[in-house]
């Protein structure tokens, strides 16, 4: 029997066991110094590897290279696989920054509390250790979030999702994404160090989920065929390979409750 799709859940809906698995996966990754570890993978985004795609880089064509969404989907796929190498059933939860009190007020609590079960909470930050960059980058990540009311609203999201043109949609969603990075500020606030903040991944899972919601309405829309064979380095995907998240083995849901087989009525 085929394995069921991995379900990425909302941060606000995780139960205690799911939170523990999530934290455990990051804790273990942070302890690995090679290319399976937190620093190596987080460093693919900005410092020191600079693979990420932002701001539609293309100096020569009005048809921009809109790789922001596909590249980050490939990145998150590889990240989640690395998480599951450590904790097999864990999935990457998404941070819905449109939620307002009483459900959530700014940074979700699981990323903010200093301790969890008497141990330091790995979701609060990561100590970057890149002494050979110029200048050296050696510090523990920190945040300086803005007022929660300044985060994007559901109305902002609805406006982006209503855009049926691919270029129009991806530009609108990237702008919302840019807003959240600046809102968190600190290391999340600049491209070079954003990937090292543990909240980065859940922010991008939200962005990826919104693309998937848009795809549910529009399919792949009028995405340029010129884009489909663009390689999403350093990952072994082209754009066409990441268009379906189900083909990548996952889906998004608000919550999940697994029904135990044992104990059922005969």
């Amino acid at each position: 029997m085929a394995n069921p799709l991995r379900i990425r859940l909302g941060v606000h809906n995780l139960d205690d066991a799911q939170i523990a698995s999530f934290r455990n996966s990051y804790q273990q990754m942070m302890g690995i110094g090679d290319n399976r570890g937190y620093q190596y993978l987080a460093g693919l985004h900005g410092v020191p590897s600079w693979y990420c795609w932002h701001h539609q880089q293309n100096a020569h064509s009005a048809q921009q290279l809109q790789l922001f969404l596909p590249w980050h989907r490939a990145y998150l796929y590889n990240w989640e696989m690395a998480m599951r190498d450590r904790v097999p059933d864990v999935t990457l939860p998404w941070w819905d920054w449109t939620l307002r009190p009483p459900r959530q007020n700014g940074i979700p609590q699981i990323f903010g509390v200093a301790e969890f079960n008497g141990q330091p909470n790995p979701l609060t930050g990561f100590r970057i250790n890149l002494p050979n960059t110029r200048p050296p980058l050696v510090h523990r990540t920190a945040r300086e979030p803005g007022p929660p009311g300044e985060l994007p609203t559901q109305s902002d999201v609805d406006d982006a999702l209503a855009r049926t043109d691919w270029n129009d949609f991806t530009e609108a969603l990237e702008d919302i994404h840019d807003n959240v990075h600046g809102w968190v500020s600190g290391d999340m606030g600049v491209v070079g160090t954003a990937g090292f903040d543990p909240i980065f991944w859940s922010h991008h899972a939200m962005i990826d989920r919104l693309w998937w919601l848009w795809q549910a309405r529009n399919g792949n829309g009028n995405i340029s065929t010129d884009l489909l064979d663009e390689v999403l380095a350093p990952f072994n995907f082209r754009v066409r390979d990441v268009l379906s998240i189900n083909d990548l083995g996952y889906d998004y849901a608000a919550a999940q409750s697994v029904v135990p087989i044992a104990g059922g009525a005969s």
Partner: protein
Amino acid sequence: MAGRKKQPKSGGAPKTTPTASAQPAAPQPPSPTPPSGAEPGTPAGALGVPKRGTRAAKIYTSKPVPIDFAGPDHRYVRSDLEIYGIYHGGPSYEGRIFLNNPKADQTTARTRENGYAGSFYIFGHGGCLGDPGHCEVNEENREEYDFRPPHPLTPAKKKVTVTDTLREIARTNKTATITVVPIVTATNELCDDVDVFRFEKMRFVSYNP
């Protein structure tokens, strides 16, 4: 930072109106000592955690531009302000757009009455963390058979839908000024956090039903 010579000039061709408290300043070099509050063992000159901007960034105001196309005699469903060639190698910031309010600054409330039309957001590179030349964009001199990806700091494009504010102003005005007020959300020792908004050109684009 290296590579500044290729970046767009501040404010493009139209005049730039700095606020009294926002004079351009050169980027500051990395601190020769570890940042205050740094952990033991932090190397000298290590880069600190990015912070929110504390100085007023330079404000851009255009000359009056014709907006007759947005007047009551014209049918359109949406107007965008498109901005091209935006430099994003420095800090992250919000660019607040005010129409016909050249006095707008960082303290101006974002209301229709003040001409506020919307914001765009730049997720900045955070300065150059590399050796000399690392952040130098040189796409114009690319070889024909150079198939490597574009430089990450190839300038950005942003567009902001400004329909409602523009429509209201166009009822009684034939022209409007465009003012962009940057609010720096994340910057570090490598970034110029005053001369933030640099771009090549901007235009209004309207769409018919």
